């Protein structure tokens, strides 16, 4: 059973396009996150949502717009893709917001901008 699943796993697209990544978790968690991992493996939080409410927005360009239709889903839409957006994007979830609980990660979406 996949706990946190992301689609697509790979995304190759042209600069300037708009794309979306979907994430779903079946753990019953209240909080979901998006992280970006660069080519040096550095992992940085972008957004967190708790029960569909935005909690953290870490100075991400407004071309990135997360949307949470319900607490089990957190999608990421990216407008006007740029070369620097090439990275691996990870979705994660945890129980509670601000609580000291481990976050569980999906296997990532590898975004390549041509």
């Amino acid at each position: 059973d996949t706990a946190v699943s992301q689609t697509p796993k790979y995304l190759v697209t042209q600069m300037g396009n708009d794309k979306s990544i979907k994430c779903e978790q079946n753990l019953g968690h209240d909080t979901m996150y998006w992280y970006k991992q660069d080519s040096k493996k550095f992992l940085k939080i972008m957004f967190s949502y708790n029960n569909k409410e935005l909690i953290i927005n870490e100075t991400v360009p407004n071309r990135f717009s997360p949307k949470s239709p319900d607490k089990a889903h957190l999608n990421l839409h990216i407008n006007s893709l740029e070369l620097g957006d090439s990275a691996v994007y990870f979705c994660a979830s945890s129980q509670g917001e601000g609580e000291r609980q481990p976050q569980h990660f999906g296997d990532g979406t590898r975004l390549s901008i041509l």
Partner: protein
Amino acid sequence: GESVGLHLPTLSVQEGDNSIINCAYSNSASDYFIWYKQESGKGPQFIIDIRSNMDKRQGQRVTVLLNKTVKHLSLQIAATQPGDSAVYFCAVFDYKLSFGAGTTVTVRA
């Protein structure tokens, strides 16, 4: 904000030996710490966590040590196996999780 650093970017260890991965953090108010393992093509996988009211916690073949005085934590892996080859991250929680840069562990047969 929190700054998290790892002492060594790579670690090569003989199969069967013990591995130690070190991590330093900057915010003395941080009170929750996690170690993750990331294999190629996968997301970070939870290994073990520790809260600031403890200085040691053990799991299956892993031990995390926390030294709040010098703001340092370490992950010890006993009897390292080929399946332990991966990138290991420490993560520190204040209002969000901040990740260190990662240590790539390679196990030699």
